[in-house]
């Protein structure tokens, strides 16, 4: 009776790879991303100026619209995720829902990047008011959280709650960023291009 090491119980043998150990490396990388962004924003002297995008009246309006676009696509993210997980009553997930979810996420992320670069380069990590401090902290956290989400996405064998929780965190953080920037901007200066 030679016992082959893997034959009888292939599934239990994989169990020792616990959820925590699968999450630790992505979480550390995400934390590092957030930390690096925050330190850069704090150490780098804000220039007050950065590359501008044509067609808008000021960097503030560009950023506000880009951030609003990112937030809109993030809402698509939440809705499509709910459909995928069958949480919307009487709606069965269509075949294209996964593609919609992936592409809306990619677009939202790519819209957010120029905004973050302008923030980091021109304005820096600031704390002269609660709004600004919250925005600085959550702005750094967002890219950390998004990195974690992207890194754990390809991992199989994760418990079912992990991805929804990660997605919810990313979405919530983005909404806080939007509320402390674009929403504030539009409600202070009016909605304009």
């Amino acid at each position, binding site marked *: 009776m030679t016992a082959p090491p893997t034959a009888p119980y292939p599934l239990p043998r994989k169990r020792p790879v616990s959820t925590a150990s699968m999450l630790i490396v992505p979480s550390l990388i995400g934390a590092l991303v957030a930390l*690096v962004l925050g330190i850069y924003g704090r150490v780098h002297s804000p220039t007050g100026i950065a590359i501008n995008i044509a067609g808008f009246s000021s960097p503030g309006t560009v950023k506000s619209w880009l951030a609003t676009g990112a937030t809109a696509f993030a809402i698509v993210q939440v809705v499509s995720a709910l459909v995928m997980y069958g949480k919307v009553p009487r709606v069965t997930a269509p075949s294209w829902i996964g593609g919609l979810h992936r592409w809306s996420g990619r677009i939202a992320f790519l819209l957010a990047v120029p905004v973050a670069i302008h923030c980091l380069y021109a304005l820096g990590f600031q704390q002269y008011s609660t709004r600004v401090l919250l925005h600085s902290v959550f702005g750094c956290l967002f890219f950390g959280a998004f990195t974690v989400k992207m890194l754990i996405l390809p991992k199989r064998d994760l418990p079912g709650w992990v991805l929804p929780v990660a997605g919810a965190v990313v979405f919530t953080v983005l909404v806080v960023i939007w509320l402390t920037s674009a929403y504030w901007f539009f409600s202070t200066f009016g909605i304009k291009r």
Partner: protein
Amino acid sequence: MKRNTPLITLLAGAALGVILLISSMLATPSSAPVSYSAAAASSAAPSSPAPAAPESSPASPAASASSSAAPSPEPTRTTPTRANYAGRVGGGGGSVAVSVHGDKAVAYVCNGSTVEGWMRGKVQNGKLVLTGKNKAHLTASYHAGKVTGDVEAHGTDYSFSVSTVNKSSGLYQATAKVQGKTIKAGWIVLGDGTQIGSLETDADSDQPNAVTAPKLDMATMTAQVGSLVLHAVPVSGVTGSGF
């Protein structure tokens, strides 16, 4: 292959970030263009392996290199190396703000209209010798709580003795590009909340002209010039912001 798409998303975002950061660095009228372009060139290569790390590394060594390359100041015992001073000039016709950060100092004097000047320079033996465009210059001695000296801008001479400020009072600046010209606004906010500011309409010119700056909204840190919104940042020797 399909499993790697989230990673590709991350790297695409990181690459976009690096490109924008380098473009911004190249577009910024900097007093040290050499170090900026050198940093941009060196950061272009290692952009792919780690998502965000290359974004931070190029700029900070460049900044620290330029500051450490400066002649190191002898340790000043009684004078703080990081402080902000602001107050009215003698006669009350304007305000002056001085921010000291290590061995560097930035000063701004302005009468809220056409007389104004930005000055930069080094701290030497507790003395400030700062110069700017339009032959603006400031000489002062500074101590724990006070800066005393003379400043001249646009041919107007002021003597002053101003104290340290804290929190929201002090010096603020904002710049923006409008039709290829850089406009630069400066505000001096005093402890009692009064502010005075001027705005250079072509800050890159050798003899910039100034007009009265729009009010700086301290709650939002913004000021509006026509349809343009200026975002102000503090020029603080304490935090190093604006240096």
